[in-house]
């Protein structure tokens, strides 16, 4: 059938089973919005394009399906940049469509022109400038394939206005032809055998798992492996929920603000099995002293991750789940009583704890209450900083796709629009953004979106009137010189929420915390809970940057 580019776009989205897009209109995407007007696809109008990218990201992380966002040319497109960089760092399948000036105006500094394919080259898995309507269906087919296979990632498609308006015959391709793109799913049998042998010979093994476990759906296989060979499991920030926090073999998160026992276990282990993790600097501290006694096995679908930051002994390129499922039958049940006894000892020495305070509500207490009230079953998004680290430490995650946070890029302002996207994708789940007063203000305008679409997202602000994590570093490493970290003129968050038509609840004492949260979670619409917490609480334990992760600062929180 003959149709215009904009209609081809919408038909392609339907063929890819996309039922919702997050976007913001503008001149160069008018033809697309004209088709969306009565199309069978839900459009969520955000209030800033950055939020469209984050919402698509949150949708993808909550559902496992690709998230789609649309923005116009120039500033619309550049506003997506932070969101795409966020998705790229955490390997999230996001498809971004941007408008572009008509092809005859490209390169002439036209109104609202920006070279968005040039700009996003290093922060997308791939991108396209589609100069001809004939190419559009093939490009969209390729984009979805690239975004969702191998190591997932964002793909941007730039659409000049005449590509959207031009007409051609529409046929959706059934396959892609990408000779340069063939991800490896099956691990090399010889290497897998090597890993099985290493596990059989190990007396102090540790599984170190990352976001790849969630994207490949390897949680069940991971649990089987851990239990079969009694291997303790530590997760990265993105992998929280991949292994239940309450499990006897769980070590929680490792790294800069990881648990003392996870860091010590990694430091002392004789076999480190990394699965779908990328040895980020916040995890390994000092690359030269990371897991110094261990043989390192690294399973990852992206060959470039293997050996990028640390040495390796057993490299396995492949999909986490596929590799684990071929590994398990080669293993016999094992017990490591001495190793687990040692870990229990560390758990006693380094309990994950905090102190009640004279100067206000302990922020960790708020997280504990949220965890308890939701029984670890909510979808939790966070902003970035102390709120994020306390959530990672004190919320007891049970399932994959329950924790959504900007881990790699560390994007403040991510949590709230991501929560909106997650709620759109999972209307059945309670979605809570655990925020800081700084981060929340970076995308506070999305209250309008939540209210307009009746999305019952809850925002719990751990309000300390500071950019808390930066202030903590200033306290620890810059002689308490709190340069530009006090937020002196915060708005009345309750009043702001109410002004947007959401509900606001103020919490000033510890006794009010639980009832306020209960009330908020029972509300059918969006709620902002402003919890005034102790102003100078810190996140501990802490490994100073570039230090061995065994050298933790205990701090004053226990």
């Amino acid at each position: 059938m003959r149709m215009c580019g904009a209609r081809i776009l919408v038909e392609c989205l339907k063929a890819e089973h996309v039922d919702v897009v997050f976007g913001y209109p503008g001149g160069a995407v008018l033809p697309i919005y004209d088709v969306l007007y009565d199309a069978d696809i839900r459009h969520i109008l955000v209030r800033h394009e950055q939020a469209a990218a984050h919402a698509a990201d949150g949708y993808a992380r909550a559902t496992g399906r690709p998230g789609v966002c649309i923005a116009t040319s120039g500033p619309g497109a550049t506003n997506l940049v932070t969101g795409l960089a966020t998705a790229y760092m955490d390997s999230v399948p996001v498809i971004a469509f941007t408008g572009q000036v008509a092809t005859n105006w490209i390169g002439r500094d036209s109104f609202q022109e920006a070279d968005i394919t040039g700009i996003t080259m290093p922060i997308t898995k791939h991108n396209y400038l589609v100069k001809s309507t004939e190419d559009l269906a093939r490009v969209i087919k390729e984009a979805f394939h690239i975004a969702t296979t191998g190591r997932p990632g964002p793909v941007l498609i730039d659409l000049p206005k005449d590509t959207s308006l031009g007409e051609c015959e529409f046929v959706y391709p059934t396959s892609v032809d990408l000779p340069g793109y063939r991800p490896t799913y099956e691990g090399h049998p010889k290497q897998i055998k090597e890993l099985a042998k290493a596990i059989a010979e190990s007396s102090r093994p540790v599984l170190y798992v990352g976001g790849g476990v969630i994207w490949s759906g390897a949680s069940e296989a991971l649990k089987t492996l851990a239990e079969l060979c009694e291997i303790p499991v530590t997760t990265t920030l993105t992998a929280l929920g991949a292994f239940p926090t309450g499990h006897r073999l769980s070590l929680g998160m490792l790294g800069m603000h990881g648990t003392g026992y996870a860091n010590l276990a990694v430091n002392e282990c004789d076999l480190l099995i990394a699965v779908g993790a990328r040895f980020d600097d916040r995890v390994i501290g000092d690359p030269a002293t990371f897991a110094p006694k261990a043989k390192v096995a690294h399973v990852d679908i992206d060959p470039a991750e293997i050996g990028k930051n640390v040495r390796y002994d057993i490299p396995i390129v492949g999909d986490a789940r596929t590799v684990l499922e071929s590994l398990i039958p080669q293993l016999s049940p094992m017990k490591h009583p001495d190793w687990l006894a040692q870990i229990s000892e560390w758990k006693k020495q380094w309990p994950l704890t905090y102190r009640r305070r004279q100067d206000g509500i302990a922020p960790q207490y708020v997280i504990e209450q949220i965890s308890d009230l939701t029984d670890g079953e909510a979808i939790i998004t966070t902003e970035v900083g102390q709120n994020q680290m306390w959530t990672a430490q004190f919320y007891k995650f049970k399932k994959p796709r329950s924790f959504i946070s900007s881990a790699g890029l560390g994007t403040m302002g991510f949590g709230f629009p991501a929560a909106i996207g997650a709620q759109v994708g999972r209307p059945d789940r309670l979605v809570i953004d655990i925020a800081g007063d700084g981060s929340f203000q970076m995308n506070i305008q999305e209250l309008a979106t939540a209210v307009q679409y009746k999305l019952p997202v809850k925002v719990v602000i751990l309000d300390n009137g500071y950019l808390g994590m930066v202030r903590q570093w200033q306290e620890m490493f810059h002689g308490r010189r709190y340069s530009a970290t006090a937020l002196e003129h915060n708005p009345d968050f309750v009043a702001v929420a109410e002004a947007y038509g959401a509900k606001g609840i103020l919490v000033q004492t510890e006794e009010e915390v639980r009832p306020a949260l209960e009330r908020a979670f029972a509300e059918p619409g969006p709620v902002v809970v402003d919890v005034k917490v102790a102003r100078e609480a810190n996140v501990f334990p802490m490994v100073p940057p570039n230090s061995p992760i065994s050298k933790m600062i205990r701090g004053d929180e226990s």
Partner: protein
Amino acid sequence: MKHTLSVLVSNRSGVLARVASLFSRRGFNIESIAVGVTEDPAVSRMTITVIADKATLEQITKQLHKLIDVIKVSDITADERVDRELALIRVSADSSNRSDILQIVDIFRAKIVDVAEKSIIVEVTGDESKIDAFVQLVRPYGLMEIARTGKVSMVRGSK
């Protein structure tokens, strides 16, 4: 150590920018890069010379592979191969020294491709060291301008 990479890429607009952007973003150094179409018009070959240690070279190769438009990356450093580069060199020359320069040109089997009143342009083809040697020898006469193509390579023998 110096390595020669032979990289097959899809012949699409922007692919050179993707490769160049990758090198600069990851902090890898390109010593030279030459690009041209292959026997298949949909595919181009890039011959890239890099100076890198073993670990960096492994990263360069793997990161190049991640680009969707990159079809194949081969490190041909250790292979028996033919390396060629072409240079155009303008040397200042007048009647007093022209014959001296011509002698050098002759020895290097180079060619004079332009003669003017006070200068000549020489075309030299060979591997990098040959071109470097030629440049060094004519430098005393007054080196005015150099344009080098960058190296292209091909593995010897039947494929």
